[in-house]
Each structure stands twice: as structure tokens, then as C-alpha cells.
């Protein structure tokens, strides 16, 4: 691993001030599990790493009247073992619990999980200069693309690797961002961007911006959520396909349904057509399969990943029925 300098600032303002002046090749490190992997593999070569863990009080889960606030440096393990989260946002609990391994959950953070870089093997190969890394083409498009996107591709076919993102999407989360220009809050849905908007990154964060907090609104009466994740092995893997379902459930009727997929697009992917088709109706396996099939007509699978469509059809109905 090549050497780099490290800054251990004490406040968010120091970080944003540092980044606003020296933003090239300065990288933020939260849990470090992804960033260090990128440095070791020589995908990035930081001049300096800015250690976020040196800032106190960025790790918390605070319940308030209108929802819960989660500090960006809260570890995935802390999120997974929080009983209030388990009760009020079971989908978030399930997603956190299914991330990687106990060791990685103890290290990885909520903010880092949302900002992690893609696992695409072309992107992770230091020898390959793909379009995401400033090259001229996406090698997955005509190459090995078993794990790649079937929605939202074009220019680049990565899938977003985060497990927390689909469920936070479904839960209408907001995020707070600090920068030298001041703080702002945006819905999580505006945070992620597709390659056709900006191919080199997966979210709107500018080099001088820091993700500080995630806020989830208080659950409405009757609100239920769940997260299903399919992997090639039983643990320690990224999702082949995952789904977060949230709905206000009364009996077997769903209202305000959100169905958000992970592992199928460069950003969390909502199945709006399916949501609309089941809204206010009596939920059955048949209806869910039909609705999902309809929504899957928009999918554009590559040569090796059409199987994801079948997986989606199956987990959507299983996840949704589990809420009845």
C-alpha cells in the first residue's frame, strides 16, 4: 500500500474547511472497510485520508417526536442491535443484520454504507480503465455481467451495493449534508444518481461535502416494513437482488406501498408500476406476481443477468406477503 498522510480533525467545520481548500486526492474515511480496500487495490491513490472517526458525537441513534436521527458514524452493528429500530423499522433492522459479517458490521458505518463504491469487477480491477474511472467504455456491457444492472444502466452498468439504501429509500429517509457553504438536507431519493447524470460517482456529494446524519420519519399507524436479500452464499455477500417493502397494512390491504430493489441498478430502484397496481387492493401472491411482471417489462437485462428478473418476482411477493 502506498503511503498517505492522515488528518484527524476535531470538528465537521474543520473537515469541510480542509476539503474546500485541498479537495483533490483527499479522501474521507469513516469505517474504512471500503476505502482501505480501494487504496490497497490501487484503485485510488489518496494524498491524504481525512479520518472522520476523530470527530466526537457523530455516532448516535436518537429518537425524537417526528422520527429518528442516525449519526453517519453509527456502526452497522449498533444499528442492528438497537431495539427501538427493530421495533419501529423492522426492515432497517433486517437490512443491517444481513450486511457482511460481524467483524465488518462492527467497523462499517451507516454513512459509509450509503457512500460505498461499486463492487463491479471491472471497476475494482486496477488494470482496467473503465468509463467510471475516466475510460471510454463500460466493459461489463459486452463482457462478464452476471452481477450487473438490469435497470438504469447506460454508460455504466454497476449495481449499488448498499443494503441500507433500498430500505432507507422505502422509509422516506432524509439526509443531512455539511459543507463549507453550509448545511443542507435532502430526501435520500435525490442523493443517488444514475451514470447518465454523472458516470464517475454514485451520489451527489461534492468533494467538500460530508454526509452527517440520516433522518427517518416516525412510522405511521399500521406501517410495516421488511427487507429480503438473496445472495450466492449464506453470509458475507452482496445482494444478487434485494427488496425493501414498506406499506400501511390493514388486514391484507396495502396502502402507501413502497417497493424498492437493491442489486439491480446503479441506485436503489423503485418499482412504481407494481406499487400502483397493488395500492388499496387485497394482497395475493398472484396479484403481486402480476404487478411485478408488469414493472419488470422496463428491465433491460444484459447477456448474463436475465435471471435477476425471476429472483425479483419471487422476493417481491415473498417480502410483501410476510407483512400481511
Amino acid at each position, binding site marked *: *500500500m*502506498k*503511503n*498517505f*498522510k*492522515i*488528518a*484527524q*480533525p476535531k*470538528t465537521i*467545520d*474543520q473537515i469541510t*474547511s*480542509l476539503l474546500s*481548500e*485541498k479537495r483533490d486526492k483527499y479522501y474521507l*474515511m469513516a469505517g*474504512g*472497510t471500503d476505502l*482501505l*480496500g480501494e*487504496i*490497497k*487495490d490501487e484503485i485510488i491513490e489518496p494524498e*491524504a*485520508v481525512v*479520518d472522520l*472517526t476523530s470527530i466526537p458525537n457523530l455516532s448516535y441513534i436518537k429518537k425524537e417526536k417526528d422520527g429518528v436521527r442516525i449519526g453517519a458514524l453509527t456502526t452497522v*452493528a449498533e444499528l442492528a442491535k438497537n431495539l427501538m429500530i427493530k421495533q419501529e423499522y423492522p426492515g432497517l433492522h433486517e437490512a443491517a443484520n444481513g450486511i*457482511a*459479517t*460481524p*467483524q*465488518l458490521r*462492527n*467497523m462499517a458505518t451507516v454513512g459509509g454504507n450509503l457512500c460505498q463504491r461499486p463492487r463491479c469487477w471491472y471497476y475494482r480491477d486496477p488494470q482496467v480503465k473503465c468509463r467510471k474511472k475516466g475510460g471510454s467504455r463500460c466493459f461489463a456491457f459486452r463482457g462478464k455481467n452476471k452481477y450487473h444492472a438490469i435497470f438504469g444502466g447506460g454508460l455504466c452498468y454497476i449495481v449499488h451495493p448498499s443494503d441500507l439504501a433500498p430500505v432507507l429509500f422505502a422509509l422516506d429517509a432524509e439526509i443531512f449534508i455539511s459543507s*463549507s457553504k453550509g448545511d443542507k438536507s435532502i430526501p435520500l431519493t435525490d442523493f443517488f444518481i444514475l451514470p447518465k447524470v454523472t458516470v464517475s460517482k454514485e451520489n451527489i456529494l461534492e468533494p467538500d461535502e460530508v454526509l452527517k446524519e440520516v433522518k427517518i420519519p416516525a412510522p405511521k399507524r399500521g406501517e410495516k416494513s421488511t427487507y429480503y436479500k438473496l445472495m450466492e452464499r*449464506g*453470509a*458475507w455477500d452482496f445482494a444478487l437482488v434485494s427488496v425493501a417493502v414498506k406499506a400501511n397494512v390493514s388486514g391484507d390491504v396495502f396502502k402507501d406501498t413502497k417497493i424498492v430493489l437493491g442489486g439491480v441498478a446503479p441506485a436503489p430502484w423503485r418499482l412504481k408500476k407494481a406499487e400502483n397496481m397493488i395500492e388499496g387492493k387485497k394482497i395475493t401472491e398472484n396479484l403481486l406476481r402480476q404487478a411485478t411482471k408488469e414493472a419488470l417489462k422496463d428491465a433491460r437485462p444484459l447477456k448474463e443477468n436475465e435471471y435477476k428478473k425471476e429472483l425479483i418476482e419471487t422476493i417481491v411477493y415473498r417480502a410483501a406477503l410476510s407483512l400481511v
Partner: protein
Amino acid sequence: MEKIKKKKRKTFTRRDFLKGFGSGALGAAVVPKLVSQDVFSLQTKEGKIPLYSKKQITLNINEKNYSLVIEPRETLLHVLREKLNLTGTKKTCSGGECGACTVLLDGNPIYSCLTLAIRADNKKITTVEGLAADGKLHPIQQAFIEKDGYQCGFCTPGFIMSSVALLEKNKNPLTEEIKTALSGNLCRCGNYSKIYEAVSVASKSMRGA
């Protein structure tokens, strides 16, 4: 063996050179108190922010304090094995994919290969060397021996550290809970059933059952 030695010497020489060069060129910026520490401050609107190329840290490993100067890129695993000669912690994949380097940081199992040593400054680290006490093996180590909880043994320290963390929190785990707690460790000999059995036996002996 010879090869490794050679490589080590080369690295050392180069660093030595850089160290000498660095302290000359950046002489004014070096904190006088800690001569071998290499730091310069970056002036920002929010005051001076120190930027370390080398930093003095203190690691509390197995209840002993070690003070040393390290580069930011040095992982905890590297420092344990190469600088402190604590080679019980194993290096295999070096990328958070195998679990052989598992140690406890403030009681929680983590991968030392993906942890910068600089960020473990002033934290409590437990490695496999810290388990035996008064010449007696830890009950989990004993159970791994009795139940053949290893074959080649290379993954064993990692498995044992994950098991220690589990049994600290859960005195009487179900087999499913043992499997989950050890899901971040790989055994390429495929000795899993014996490992689970060893942990289960250890939990019994630790409860005095």
C-alpha cells in the same frame, strides 16, 4: 526465508532514507518534542489542522502498553505482526474476506487487516496471545484442542477471537447463534462442524455446566 529478510531490509533502508530526508526538508514543521513524528500543519479557516506522515501512538495490547511511531498506511495487522512480533494474528487475504486477522478492539471483533493502526490509538486490543492466563489456556483454546476444532490451524486464531467475543456476550449460544457469530471467518479445510462443536463445549465449560 532469505527472500523475506532481504525485502524487509530493503524497505527499512528506503524508509530510513526518507525519514532522514523528510526531517531535513520539513525540519521547521516537525514537532520538536517527538523527533521521529512527521507532521505539518495545514492552515485553514477553522485553524491549523495537523497532517501526519508519521505519528506516535500508544496501543494497549493484551493489557500492555506499546508506544511506537507509525505511518498512516500501516494496518493494525501489520503493526502486530511485523513491529511487535505478535504473529498469532494471521495475515491471509489482507482484504476483509477471510477473518484470519480477527482481533478484539474494545471487546468487539474486527478485521485488523482493514483497520489503520493509527485509528486504534489508545484503544484496547486483544489478540490470541492475550487469552491464556497463568500458564493455562483459555477454555475456548482448550476446547478447540479437545474437539479437533482445527486442521491446518491457520484460521484458528481468528475463529477463537470471534468465539471469545461471542461467549462474552452470550454465555449459552444456540448452534445457529454460533454460526452467525463465526460467519466472518473462513476455514478452507472445511472444519466447520468441529469448530461449532468446540465453541459449544467451551460455552459449557465456561458456565461450569
